């Protein structure tokens, strides 16, 4: 298991989740959990994804997702899960 957290923050629009999920499926990443909220018209989505069988490098996926976010007018971040786990769990 190589858990990664993907966050998408930005103005709500149609097809954001679809586009991100398509990218992940194409690259053999396994989505474990998705949650989203809309605060003040802003779309906040978090995905827990397993990168264990990813068919490209972490850096490549991070760059591609950031680029995809740019096209969709949102910010997509891709971070290793441990930073959140360490900060919020004893």
């Amino acid at each position, binding site marked *: 298991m190589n858990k990664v*957290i993907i*966050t998408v923050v930005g103005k709500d629009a149609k097809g954001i989740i679809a586009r991100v999920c398509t990218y992940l499926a194409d690259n053999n990443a396994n989505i*474990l*959990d998705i*949650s*989203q*909220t809309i605060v003040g018209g802003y779309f*906040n*989505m*978090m995905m*827990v994804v397993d990168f264990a069988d990813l068919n490209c490098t*972490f*850096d490549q996926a*991070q760059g591609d997702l950031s680029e995809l976010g740019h096209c969709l007018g949102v910010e997509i*971040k891709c*971070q*290793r*899960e*441990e*930073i*959140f*786990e*360490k*900060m*919020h*769990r004893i």
Partner: protein
Amino acid sequence: MINISEVLETNKMVEQQNLDVRTITMGINLLGCADKDLVMCCEKIYSKITTMARDLVKTGEDISREYGIPIVNKRISITPISLVGAACCKTPEDYVKIAQTLDRAAKEVGVNFLGGYSAIVSKGMTKSDELLIRSIPQAMATTDFICSSVNVGSTKTGINMDAVRLMGEIIKETAEATKENDSLGCGKLVVLCNAPDDNPFMAGAFHGVSEADAIINVGVSGPGVVNSVLQSVRGESFEVLCETIKRTAFKITRVGQLVAQEASRRLGIPFGIIDLSLAPTPAVGDSVADILCEIGLECAGAPGTTAALALLNDQVKKGGVMASSYVGGLSGAFIPVSEDQGMINAVEKGCLTLEKLEAMTCVCSVGLDMIAIPGDTPATTISGIIADEAAIGMVNQKTTAVRIIPVIGKTVGDSVVFGGLLGYAPVMPVNKYSCADFVNRKGRIPAPIHSFKN
């Protein structure tokens, strides 16, 4: 499993509240580089540093990108050079050659500071220590990334007043040697009492002789995060205030611990310590002074400042120690003037004076830090300021330090711009009365009694 609000909270700390890991500092033992021949010694030093730290900067950048946490500085600390150069340096100029070698090595591996151009003279000075100290002005003037420190006292040994007197003169000479750059050389030179062997922060970082061959130490930061969180508990009791600071310090430190372990694993070098410090930067919102205001002061320096700082410092440690397996270094809130916009404002308003800063150093790390004073301040007065700080450290069994900049050609009312993380500072007034006869006495102040505490 981690939920969305936790993820958003972490990212908000980074994006809006200046959360970062301030430094990954690799400590490198250079004792094996000692040689009777200066050229050989320099070659060995260059080779050891550039080999050991070859991947330091890249590793820091990789971790930063993968976890989404800025790691601001990648640095190196080395064995105090007065030990390494003792066999081959016969003049201060010989030591300057080592400084220039270190500067080249720092540039080669891409770090932004290298600390350890140092001498530990808390009880006495060897010939080598004195040569190194006398080389500091020239070394600071002819290098870019070298930091120098001199430890002049300790709780166990007392204060070496001969070294304190010499350091007053050396600070003045360093100011003069770097006057073209607003005496910036003094910003890279610190005089310490009870200096720790594992400090990752500059300018006082060195790799002590009690350390292993190489070690990874990490300094965490995050005054902006503490300040933001405290805004949500305005008017609440001290219990709530303290609890809030502790929780936040825990979270900040856990990030540091993660980065330290990861850096250690990737570089194949053991993890040493986390330094739990609230280190401000000149960036707006990244200020320790602002936290003091949020705690309830109109301005840093007002009555109550020392108590508020003591509280803050203690809670940061209490929250931080649980988050990390090994805590060390300086660990506490830093109160540099030029690197903290809130401190600068307080000085400019006339609310914060040198004397109040001295009182504040009794309850926090580290000491009088990045303070610009008039260029015509006598060397003996600077020695007196150093002696006062060293006495506070010696008696209270804590680290204290003086990093003070007598800016040549400037006086009270002027301000100096150091640039980057070193920020800018208004020139502060210094007490005009002399302490020359005190400072000019020879010898040392004895170690304090360790009983009958009052």
